[in-house]
């Protein structure tokens, strides 16, 4: 039987297709994705982390797509990925994402790799462990980077007025009043909104003896005389003009810009300002004193933060993802990254707090801050409600209502408590 030309063409096509598919199958490499939701102050450090990832990928024969951006860009992207269950294989994210990921049932148990890494470099700091450990002692993420805060003080302005360096909030306000000379310089560049402001507001409330949550983490205790004291301190300073009026619109770089431009006498921030001053303004660096975060009548509290490496349970390559984490968390890589960051972030491994860079006068307060660092939910545990409160900056919105909308403090607190209760109900449903 003669086969027609058309049938011959079809057979040839099928043969070529089968051959190419088998070749493709043999040469297919794992394709992984890593997202990094973290701002890198120094561009080189972003490249450094990326180089660790790419180097690992080349060694393992993996095709990896590495994507990094700040939170404003990544928030909707991660939300969309959670909703569609298309998260990447590994993510570097803030701990405030964990409750949402838990609710969406996307958490992978990484206790094995966490315990392995906890045996390195002196182990994780207590705060880092508290941030990622579940009530049944499992790890749902791996701590990678931490943050703490300190106070920046314009010593030259204080010296001109014959003033000592203040240590408490109240003394800071008094000193700010003395050096206040807008628009040349505002006494106090205190951030009250966004994530920085949220940390400061929390810390101030605690330092006055108040708390947002109870010791068992179940009750909302924001409505208290101590909270009112803290709010009124900021409100009075704002009304008096010790703070620039546009603190209520600052983004996360607002207090950085204010201090770095010489427009603020005092600010509280991470090591980011110190890193910038050293590189860009030696004069202002030399005129600055770097000290511990201010204290209140009930003590000194500094809200820390943790960025974690997270592996969703939707990944096709859980073992490879854990191997990647093992690689980028190695001692050499952590030391190099921490040193390159220059103090912008603090280590989550105990031994790394002894690196030479922390002896520099501009960063030593961060190293010394460890006894005062707490995490969202304090004095209770790190709960989903506490992390959600921080992510939604509820206390900052409360401050904005007082300062911008001229609400009474009582009304603003009532609104914040109502919002927290609504979030609590939605988390429990």
């Amino acid at each position, binding site marked *: 039987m003669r086969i027609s030309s058309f049938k011959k063409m079809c057979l040839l096509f099928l043969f070529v297709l089968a051959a190419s598919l088998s070749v493709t199958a043999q040469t297919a490499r794992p394709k992984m994705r890593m997202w990094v939701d973290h701002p890198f102050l120094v561009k080189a450090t972003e490249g450094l982390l990326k180089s660790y990832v790419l180097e690992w990928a080349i060694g393992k024969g993996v095709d990896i797509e590495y994507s990094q951006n700040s939170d404003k860009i990544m928030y909707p992207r991660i939300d969309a990925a959670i909703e569609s269950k298309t998260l990447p294989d590994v993510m570097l994210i803030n701990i405030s994402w964990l409750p949402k990921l838990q609710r969406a049932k996307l958490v992978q148990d990484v206790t094995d790799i966490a315990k392995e890494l906890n045996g390195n470099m002196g182990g994780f700091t207590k705060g880092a462990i508290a941030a990622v450990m579940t009530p049944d002692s499992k790890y749902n993420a791996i701590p990678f980077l931490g943050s703490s805060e300190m106070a920046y003080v314009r010593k030259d302005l204080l010296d001109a007025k014959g003033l000592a360096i203040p240590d408490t909030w109240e003394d800071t306000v008094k000193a700010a009043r003395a050096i206040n000379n807008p*628009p040349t310089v505002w006494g106090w560049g205190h951030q009250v909104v966004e994530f920085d402001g949220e940390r400061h507001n929390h810390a101030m409330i605690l330092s006055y003896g108040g708390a947002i949550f109870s010791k068992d983490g179940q009750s909302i205790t924001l409505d208290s005389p101590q909270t009112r004291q803290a709010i009124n301190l900021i409100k009075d300073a704002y009304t008096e003009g010790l703070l*620039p009026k546009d603190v209520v*619109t600052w983004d996360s770089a607002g207090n950085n810009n204010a201090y770095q431009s010489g427009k603020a006498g005092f600010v509280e921030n991470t090591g980011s300002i110190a890193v910038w001053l050293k590189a860009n303004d030696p004069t202002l660096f030399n005129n600055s004193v770097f000290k511990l975060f201010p204290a209140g009548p009930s003590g000194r509290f500094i809200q820390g933060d943790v960025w974690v490496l997270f592996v969703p349970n939707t990944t096709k390559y859980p073992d490879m993802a854990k191997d990647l984490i093992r690689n980028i968390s190695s001692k050499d890589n952590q030391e190099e990254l921490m040193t390159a960051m220059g103090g912008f972030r603090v280590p989550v491994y105990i031994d790394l707090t002894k690196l030479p860079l922390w002896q520099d006068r501009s960063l030593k307060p961060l190293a010394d801050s460890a006894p005062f660092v707490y995490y969202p939910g304090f004095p209770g545990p790190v709960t989903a409600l506490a992390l959600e409160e921080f992510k939604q900056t509820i206390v900052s*919105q409360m401050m904005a*209502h007082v300062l911008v*909308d001229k609400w009474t403090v009582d009304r603003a607190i009532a609104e914040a408590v109502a919002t927290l209760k609504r979030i609590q109900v939605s988390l429990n*449903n």
Partner: protein
Amino acid sequence: MPVPHTWKLKLSAFYGARYEQSTAGIFYIAPLIIVLASLLLYPIGYSILGSFQSKIIGSPGKFIGLGNYIELLTKDQAFAEVCFNTFLYATVSVILKVLLGFAAALLLNERVVGQRFFRGWIMIPWLIPTLVVGLMFRWMFDQTGGFLNFAIQETGLMKVPPAWLADKVLARGAVIFANIWRGFPFFMITILAAMQSISRELYEAAEIDGASAGQRLRFITIPGVSSVVLVVILLSSIWTFNDFELLWVMTGGGPSYSTHIFVTYAYQLSFLGSRFGYAMAVSLIATPLITAFILLLIPRILGDEQ
């Protein structure tokens, strides 16, 4: 592809024989309709359904009927302000863009020195990406380091210039100003094109008859461009109503909620507040209003064309 006989019969029975020949056309445009339906109808339908649910990202939604709308209208302390901001922003911006665009078009319609140069360069605000415009004005209006306050201080107008973006009223003014700066070239170029299509003979005849410049403007120019102006108002109103980028970059909806409009408020609720269902209710609640506005204007536009 031949149309199935039964389909032809069904359609002709419903519409009458003269529609038979369109059934082939329906088949040819069916793929386009399917794509548009999935890109438009599915998201809209999902949003409507989602607005009746208590939904947070990552979790399945729980049907709560009108719960979101009731909360929005009775308990949400920000909603009244968001409504006010939206209508203020859209109305003032569009009115001033019309006036400024019209004035610029009038000027550029005359034979003035540098006419061609200005006609081109005046389009620049429209060409700059909105993100860049937002960042530019955010910097300009910054209290501590912005150019505007620097100029005010240097000229001695005020010792302590205002915090433009920290005061509710000033912040609203700042975002409206930015929107007008960016948007008026579109009005200008469209109205100018309409003016150019008005016959010169009408003006000459009016001049011969003794009409003043004001009368020529009122009885020739304005009627001649009115249909175009209505279309531009309609488009600009819809765009301004849904303006996200400029507001989000300049103020993030702040200070407090003073520059939030529906779309930025919905964004904040969904991606920062994790309340997807509630955010959908916010974004949909204005839809009947926009639809009513469009339905009011369309007959006027079509009536003018006729």
